[in-house]
């Protein structure tokens, strides 16, 4: 697995593109799969009377072979599209946002942003079809020089923005509590150090007083 999480970190949710965008690609493949039948139908309609035969054997089996070879290529492309769709994802953990962008099979970009660096989360639905199907884009603005995180065509972008904001709030809350407990521990440590030093001073002072008393007694005795 390429993405490793810390021991105290877990995935809150994963976001992928809306299934409708993937369906468009599959529809294109389905159309290409039935395209040979359309071509045959058009040839039959044409006013030419001709037949096709093969020198090496029965042409009917050649048609079957050609069609299934064509289907095999489309099948592979279908999986290619699906893999691209599946791997293009946002993973929101308790500590960070991981953006995995897959471009084809051999190019992948992984960007990570710590949740405390996120400044603004914005959702956007634009167009008739996205409004009907309820999908759109989410923009995450980060502090500093880092690029804007953008995921296109996610389902229910408003809900995802809300969930992301909740994850951010939880992270910030946990961060504040951790900071406070650290401060408290530091204060305790300082206090105990001060107590120790005070005790040392007292001990030192007592030792000096004892020594002075002894000296006085010795002088009086002499």
């Amino acid at each position: 697995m390429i993405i490793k999480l810390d021991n105290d970190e877990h995935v809150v949710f994963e976001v992928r593109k809306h299934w409708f965008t993937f369906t468009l690609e599959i529809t294109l493949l389905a159309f290409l799969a039935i395209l040979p039948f359309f071509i045959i139908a058009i040839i039959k309609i044409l006013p030419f009377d001709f037949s096709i035969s093969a020198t090496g054997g029965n042409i009917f089996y050649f048609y079957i072979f050609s069609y299934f070879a064509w289907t095999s290529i489309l099948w592979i492309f279908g999986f290619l599209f699906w893999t691209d769709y599946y791997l293009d994802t946002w993973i929101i953990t308790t500590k960070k946002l991981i953006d995995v962008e897959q471009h084809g099979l051999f190019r992948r970009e992984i960007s990570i942003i710590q949740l405390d660096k996120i400044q603004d989360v914005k959702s956007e639905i634009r167009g008739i079809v996205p409004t009907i199907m309820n999908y759109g884009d989410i923009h995450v603005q980060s502090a500093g020089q880092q690029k804007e995180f953008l995921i296109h065509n996610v389902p229910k972008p408003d809900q995802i923005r809300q969930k992301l904001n909740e994850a951010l709030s939880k992270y910030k809350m946990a961060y504040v509590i951790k900071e406070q407990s650290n401060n408290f521990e530091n204060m305790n440590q300082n206090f105990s150090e001060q107590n120790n030093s005070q005790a040392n001073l007292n001990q030192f002072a007592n030792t000096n007083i004892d020594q002075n008393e002894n000296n006085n007694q010795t002088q009086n005795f002499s």
Partner: protein
Amino acid sequence: MPENTVQNLKNIELPISSGAMWMTLLILIIVFVIMYFVFSYHWKSVGIEENPKVFARPLFWIVSVLLIIVMTLSVAGFEYL
């Protein structure tokens, strides 16, 4: 007068040999195997929670094998029937 080319289309005889079809089938099988390994690598290496190989791998194999069987039978039919 030039001859009407449509009239020449009475019977088109394609120079297809079964050897070329077997070769095409072999290339397709090699492509299937290579693509299977490439896809498997991707499904295994990326992603954290859901594991797509649970259904993707068998689906890819079953349909691919069916396609290869049909193509093999059609080449055999072309050659022997």
